[in-house]
């Protein structure tokens, strides 16, 4: 068991308990044992202290949507590298999608991920099970047994469940289990062959577009089926204004829906595909690092997504961390893989919204901690809180520290980021899982009494 640790003089921020003040936090035996004013905590022998002056101390971030690629695509990422990347991004619990090879559609594969994560992982890993066998959209998985083995929800992410009948049955089944159906909303017939948002940039670049309607059609269908079945629906990676409006209306009607948005959909537009147009460089390129599904959209969509966060229409920010090898991305745009390696840039990218005044810090932290914890539930321990007695999953970050993204320094095997070279303001300084420091910035000094 790691020694007791005092995090001293930080800005304690816990949206769930309404804590927003300078103070100390004490960790012992892997749990939070005390939270209070600076210098007033109980005396402890063998106490290590982190001076958190100027830092924000909040519950560890929880990512509801990532791809760890293991088993099957270990050249892209492994559970070991992916969880280290998550730790660098301030995430203490991550939920991995089941589009591995084999997919997570059996108890054995779920068990493999859990065991590997326990032995080799740096942070907590909660797997998501497949909705259908082999992600083929035809037969339901043994959802009840997958839940017993630790699946926190069900998704065929990467592929939508095309059949309305199958997804309605999945909802009926998961409703009984109390777990969410997490659908990748895309009408594949409409998006067929599409490479980026359907709009002026796709027209300019001569690339086939993916219309916003391809997402909205499936969001609308799923909301209707959630109403029909009463099941919990979680809409993953919402990217369009129209989806936000559909979810808003569904929530007003009382449908049990939650939704997530990624950092890249909140900060980048379709124009990013034409390259990073800076003062130094305005040459047109086809940037495969900005190729992602759903595609980067428009300024109007970004405004609606941010408003959706502020209005509680969108509950959660999740990374959709999708690591790929260089070979997957260093090729013609049309042949490149979809996806962005997102763990290590999430906070820096999101803090831009805070510094610009578009999102307040408490809302942001709530979307990264309290809200995803609510969706997961308490079966794997109470998370997303600084409450004494709870597991000590804590993230320390400096909201004002400026740094430059260098993908070569990523812990992730996936260097595929559209943010390489960007200057961010806001950096994770330390990540603590169960009282153990799993990542610390070089600036962290731990003093022993």
């Amino acid at each position, binding site marked *: 068991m790691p020694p007791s640790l005092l995090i001293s003089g930080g800005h304690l921020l816990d949206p769930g308990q309404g804590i927003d003040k300078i103070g100390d936090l004490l960790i012992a035996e892997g749990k939070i044992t005390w939270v209070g004013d600076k210098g007033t905590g109980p005396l402890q022998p063998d106490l290590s202290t982190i001076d958190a002056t100027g830092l924000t101390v909040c519950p560890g971030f929880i990512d509801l949507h990532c791809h760890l690629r293991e088993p099957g695509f270990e050249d892209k990422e492994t559970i070991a590298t992916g969880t280290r990347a998550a730790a660098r991004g301030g995430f203490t619990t991550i939920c991995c999608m089941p589009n591995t090879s084999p997919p997570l559609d059996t108890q054995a594969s779920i068990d493999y991920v859990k065991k590997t994560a326990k032995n080799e992982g740096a942070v907590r890993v909660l797997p998501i099970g497949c909705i259908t066998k082999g992600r083929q959209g035809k037969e339901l998985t043994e959802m009840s047994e997958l839940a017993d083995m630790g699946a926190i929800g069900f998704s065929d992410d990467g592929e939508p469940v095309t059949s309305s009948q199958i997804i309605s049955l999945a909802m009926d089944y998961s409703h009984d289990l109390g777990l969410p159906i997490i659908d990748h909303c895309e009408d594949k017939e409409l998006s067929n062959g599409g490479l980026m948002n359907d*709009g*002026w940039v796709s027209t300019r*670049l001569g*690339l086939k577009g993916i219309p916003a309607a391809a997402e909205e059609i499936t969001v609308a269908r799923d909301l209707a089926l959630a109403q029909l079945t009463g099941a919990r629906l979680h809409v993953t990676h919402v990217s369009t204004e129209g989806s936000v409006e559909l979810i808003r209306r569904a929530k007003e009607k009382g449908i049990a829906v939650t939704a997530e948005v990624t950092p890249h959909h909140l900060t980048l537009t379709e124009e990013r595909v034409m390259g990073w147009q800076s003062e130094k460089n305005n040459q*047109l*390129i*086809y940037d495969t690092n900005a190729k992602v599904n759903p595609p980067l959209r428009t300024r109007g969509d970004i405004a609606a997504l941010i408003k959706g966060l502020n209005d509680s229409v969108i509950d959660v920010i999740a990374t959709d961390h999708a690591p790929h090898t260089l070979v997957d991305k260093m090729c*013609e745009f*049309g*042949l490149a893989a979809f996806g962005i390696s997102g763990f290590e840039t999430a906070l820096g990218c999101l803090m831009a919204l805070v510094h610009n005044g578009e999102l307040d810090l408490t809302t942001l932290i709530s979307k990264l901690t309290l809200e995803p914890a609510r969706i997961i539930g308490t079966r794997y321990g109470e998370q997303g809180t600084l409450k004494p007695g709870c597991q000590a999953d804590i993230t320390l970050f400096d909201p004002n520290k400026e740094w430059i993204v260098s993908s070569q320094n990523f812990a992730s095997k996936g260097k595929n980021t559209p943010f390489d070279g960007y200057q961010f303001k806001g950096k994770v300084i330390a990540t603590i899982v169960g009282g153990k420091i799993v990542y610390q910035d070089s600036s962290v000094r731990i003093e022993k009494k």
Partner: protein
Amino acid sequence: MKLTEPRSSATIPGTFPPPSISVWQHRHILDLDDFTQEELKLVFEIADAMTEVLTREVKRVPTLRGKTVVTLFYEPSTRTHASFELAAKNLSADTVSLDASKSSIAKGESLIDSLRTIQALGADVIVIRHSQSGAPYLATQYVNISVINAGDGWHAHPTQALLDLYTIQRHVGKLADLKITIIGDIMHSRVARSNIWGMTTMGASVVLCAPPTLLPRGLADFITHCQLPNVSIESRIEPALEGADIVMPLRLQVERQQSGLLPSLREYIQLYQLTEERLHLAKPCALVLHPGPINEGIEISPEVAYGTQSVIENQVTNGVAIRMALLYLIAGGKNK
């Protein structure tokens, strides 16, 4: 460097190369979106000199002697490929022609690997044709030699657009203030996309005419965002042709109908074929261009394709001159 021979030098206007060569800024020819009017005029001026070379008995000058031009074609092409080969040979460059379906590319060699190999073999210019939009842009990121885009996906075909512009320039004497109507499959047309840039830069106005299913949904936004007030969209052929100086039907691929974009070829022919009767709606001396290959009896009637207003064959000849001019500017000219 000597381009001219004494017996024909009188037909080349002024000195060669012209002083205006100082405006040339390009290492690569990727699209016409970054060409200035001065650069386009320079290309025409050099192409005039090359046209003169093409009238000689021995159509060959030593300009690019010792240079190697590699053509790398991932898509079948007859005229563009032959045109580049001839252009390079007329300038005395060595040419190597790689057909992607026959080389190691068919064994799974990546584009970047192929390009690096071609560079290591000592090529000075790569001419690339690819079915994926943006492939030539990828090439410029990984090799140091000059890249000429000979057509990439739906995106751009700058040398075709330049030969279209040059053909108009030679026949009409100007491009400014002309009404140019492009009819057909705009959505999938790299020729139309490149021509939009070149034609508007030269001061012409462009009317894009197609059935709604063959117009990109983002076209109107594209026109707004890229500030192209001289580009308009017209879904009916009659108003599009009204008063046009130039008419350019595009090749309609039969597969478009099979993939559901058109109700029937019959209806397309009824509504969009450029016939003699419809051509009367344009100005009396309007020119007919076509980027080829022609689908006779579909987008254009044979009477129009081979009629007095057609300059389709001149386009092919001008294509050689334009490509000679571009190779000269990229591999000889200013860089020497």
